[in-house]
């Protein structure tokens, strides 16, 4: 007996199992081949004879967007386009026909498109085997003509394509964003994710941020076409798939509030305004001026129009509410006051050196906007009257670190994490920043005076300003501003955890802040935001700006006892916060809190009101 025989015998059982598995595998393969080639051979031979199977995309409708009450903000409407379906088939002859000048000229004339463009699209389609859109939104006359000439111009067909539709035009345009046809560069990177030419893709705003939810998934069916390129039947073969519609989004946005805010901001050349719900951080309304109409993108933009929208001085595509950064001016005194209370450096009744219209520090005079001086004020009075001299002194007591820490606890100097793309950070400078900028030790504490009144290097987005008001409204509880409330029919979308640490809900801090803000509206610089019967707390600001006229700012929340809205308004290069920004917030609040019947009366009254409140403001320059 050879040793090899023993080895062999020992391996034999395993060999039988493995060999059996191999035979079974090849048996399955042979069975599949017999089935396909013998039993179904006729069927496939027939299909192959003219090779007439063509995949056709069943486009998934993009999800709609609704406001919190179910009002429609964006949906997809069907539109009719003219497409060229390449010949799957037989004839190089037909392909040659589509390349002939005569054919191209006829098609071009029929649908009213440049014949070079038709040629480009047709060549692409013949190369890739995918249909090409020759004309979007074909008018009825063209559609009818195409239907009539179908027999003479095989390959040219009418096809339904979804078109993005924004029923309210430019309303909330920056927040919704827009969806446009995917371009070639995007296709290169996104083809693996299932995008195909002709697809819509969200470019900015909610449309971009929630692209994956809104998009859905295209289906496909395999159609059998005859030699002339017309559909005969649908192949029952496996592989067809129904489209899965995109998911609808329900926003926290309130269309009524948005309308009111749009109206209040209608005559603003450049600026932004945000209304937040201070209870959960949901965005109720967001306006950026100048605006654009997202429907323009659905219909295809000319190059010139694109340049106009995307560039230029005004840059309408810029969402100033989250991408624009502004010095907060005196609205920042809310932060300075909170910092002083938090760090125990002042109490509500602390009186500092009286204001005589300015103070000297480091050999330089720092002026108060009230040249005549405010006299002796306590902390509450200082915020109410926006006394710069008082806040200069507070700033010096606080120091850079404490002021910065409080600002960051409010969520400033960092992205709020709102569910919109391209949010700006803003800037809360710290010692490292100044070291970088001026060199270590080469800057002085004098800059603290400017920071304390919201000037200097500070930069905030309007959304961050609204966040400050909202957090003051709810005792320093941190918030995550967000836009989407529900995905699909019933999936609740919980906002993610806030980014900022927030504060302890200490009434000894937030009571005085709210009291001072309320006084600033009822008997101070923010009188234009008053609403009869509703307690409003706010703070004006006028931010100096080296490039031109001051920016007007205002932040507020209401009602004071149980706040339901926090607002920030920024109007670029327009003057004083009290006379330019506060009346717009006031208009919004009155629309929200007063019944329609009282609107007209109050509006008339409000004029007098505003005039009164604005009167003291108009004589003076607020801020440094």
């Amino acid at each position, binding site marked *: 007996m050879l040793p090899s025989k023993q080895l062999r015998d020992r391996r*034999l059982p395993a060999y039988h199992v493995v060999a059996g598995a191999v035979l079974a595998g090849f048996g399955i393969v042979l069975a599949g081949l017999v089935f396909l080639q*013998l039993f179904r051979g006729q069927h496939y*031979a027939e299909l192959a004879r003219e*090779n007439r199977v063509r*995949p056709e995309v069943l486009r998934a409708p993009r999800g709609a967007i609704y406001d919190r009450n179910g009002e429609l903000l964006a949906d997809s409407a069907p539109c009719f386009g003219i497409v060229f379906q390449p010949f799957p088939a037989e004839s190089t002859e037909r392909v040659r026909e589509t390349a002939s000048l005569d054919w191209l000229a006829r098609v071009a004339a029929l649908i009213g498109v440049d014949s070079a463009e038709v040629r480009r699209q047709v060549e692409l389609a013949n190369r890739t085997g995918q249909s090409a859109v020759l004309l979007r939104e074909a008018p009825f006359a063209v559609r009818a003509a195409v239907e009539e000439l179908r027999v003479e111009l095989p390959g040219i067909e009418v096809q339904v394509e979804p078109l993005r539709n924004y029923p309210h035009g430019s309303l909330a345009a920056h927040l919704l964003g827009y969806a446009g046809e995917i371009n070639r560069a995007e296709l290169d990177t996104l083809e693996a994710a299932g995008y195909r030419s002709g697809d819509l893709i969200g470019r900015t705003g909610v449309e971009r941020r929630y692209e994956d939810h809104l998009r859905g998934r295209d289906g496909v069916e395999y159609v059998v076409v005859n030699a002339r390129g017309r559909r005969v039947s649908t192949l029952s073969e496996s592989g067809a798939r129904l489209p899965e519609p995109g998911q609808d989004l329900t926003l926290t946005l309130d269309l009524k509030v948005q309308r009111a805010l749009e109206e209040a901001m209608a005559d603003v050349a450049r600026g932004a305004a945000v209304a937040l719900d201070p209870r959960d951080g949901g965005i109720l309304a967001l306006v950026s001026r100048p605006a654009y109409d997202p429907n323009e993108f659905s219909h295809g933009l000319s190059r010139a129009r694109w340049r106009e929208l995307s560039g230029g001085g005004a840059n309408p595509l810029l969402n100033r509410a989250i991408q624009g950064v502004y010095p907060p001016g005196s609205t920042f005194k809310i932060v300075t006051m909170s910092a002083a209370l938090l760090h125990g450096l002042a109490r509500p009744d602390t009186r500092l050196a009286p204001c005589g219209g300015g103070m000297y520090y480091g050999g330089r005079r720092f002026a108060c906007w009230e040249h005549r001086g405010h006299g002796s004020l306590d902390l509450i009075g200082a915020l109410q009257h926006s006394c710069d001299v008082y806040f200069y002194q507070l700033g010096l007591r606080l120091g850079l670190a404490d002021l910065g820490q409080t600002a960051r606890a409010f969520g400033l100097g960092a992205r709020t994490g709102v569910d919109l793309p391209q949010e700006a950070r803003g800037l809360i400078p710290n010692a490292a920043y100044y070291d970088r900028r001026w060199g270590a030790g080469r800057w002085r504490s004098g800059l603290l005076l400017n920071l304390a009144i919201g000037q200097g290097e500070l930069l905030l987005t309007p959304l961050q300003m609204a966040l400050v008001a909202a957090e003051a409204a709810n005792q320093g509880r941190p918030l995550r501003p967000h836009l989407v409330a529900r995905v699909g029919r019933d999936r609740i979308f919980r906002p993610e955890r806030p980014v900022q640490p927030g504060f302890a809900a200490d009434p000894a801090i937030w009571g005085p802040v709210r009291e001072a803000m309320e006084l600033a509206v009822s008997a101070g610089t923010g009188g234009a935001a008053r609403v009869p019967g509703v307690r409003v707390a706010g703070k004006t600001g006028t931010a100096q700006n080296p490039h031109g006229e001051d920016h007007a700012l205002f932040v507020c929340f209401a009602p004071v006892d149980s706040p339901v809205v926090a607002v920030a308004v920024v109007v670029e290069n327009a003057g004083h916060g009290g006379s330019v920004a506060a009346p717009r917030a006031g208009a919004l609040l009155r629309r929200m809190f007063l019944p329609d019947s009282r609107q007209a009366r109050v509006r008339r009254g409000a004029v007098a009101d505003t005039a009164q409140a604005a009167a003291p403001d108009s004589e003076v320059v607020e801020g440094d």
Partner: protein
Amino acid sequence: MTRGRLRLPPLDLPLLAAALSLVGVGLITVYSATSIPGAHHGLWVRQLAWAGIAFAVGWVVASVHYRAYDALAWPLYGVSLLLLVLVLVMGTSAMGARRWLDLGPLHFQPSELAKVATVLVLARRFDQEKLDLRRFAHWFPALVLVLVPFALVAKEPDLGTSLTFPVILVVMYFWAGMPLRQLALGLSPVLNAALFLLTGTVWWSAGLVVALLALVRPRLSTLLVVLALNAGVGYALPHVWNHLHDYQKRRIETFLNPGSDPYRAGYQVIQSRIAIGSGGFVGTGYLRGTQKALAFLPMRHTDFIFSVVGEEFGLVGTAAVVLLFGLLILRGLRLALVARSGFASLLAVGVVTALFYHVMVNVLMTIGWAPVTGLPLPLISYGGTALVANGIQIGLLQNVALRRAEF
């Protein structure tokens, strides 16, 4: 003991003949598939050149004693892992996956080398006197050895190729003496997960596990471990799945089944089925296939070359190819049976498993019974590195054949 007394032929001639015939089929089919207007003419010449190179390489591989490969197993394994990492860092990507290293004129696919190196290293580990694969300390290191290249290739992502590694491991485990029941228990969580992804419920999997345990009746400790693993998978998977966003589910679906995009891969499969089916019993005749002529059969000279065989030569042709593969693989398996050393036997089994897996996945893909994974058909598909890799595999089998009479 001398070779003369055993009267064994030095080479396994049927195996060699089958391999050469398949390469021949590949050459004439590549010629046909690329003979249409607008295609890459003359690819068959390059394929012929590659076949020559593959033959030479295979010859060299066969002539060196396999003891050398035994000794080189670890360094080769190390190098192949290094190359797999390299491919992830600086590989050439095509169709969304990084699979190749660009070496000037040629593209090198390190996963091909990794397959062979993994077989060598497993054969070396399992070729021990006191091996007892029922023991954790004996089977677990092999699992780790296989999971590393598996994970690296899956990351490319190339799920089809990466699955070769665990398939090789399972068969080599069995060949090296792991009891079937233990294999079944060990594989049950994997089957469990696969069943869930296929059916969408955990009830099938639960039934499977209970049936398996009743059949195998393992020790209590094993029972508990297997139950815990399965329960873990069964609990976690649906939980995780339901918490995924739709688009995340879609990404996983596309990873598991790249052909699930019906517009591209699904269309390919339909075209491939039409081509094969229309071939009927005897086919449309050489160079007379219409599907491939219309350029609608994508990758007709690479991944879908079997469809061209099916169209032009019909069932006669496809059955002949399948039988040639059957001959090749069963001859290889026979070598594993008669090999003189444990290492050689395990080596043959590993190589045969890799070949069998590729043939099955590719052919089933072309008839629409397996997902579109982009695996070439061994020895037939156009492609230089794959052909050379096949040459090495055949060379290793012949190596075992040449030395089956030695001690």
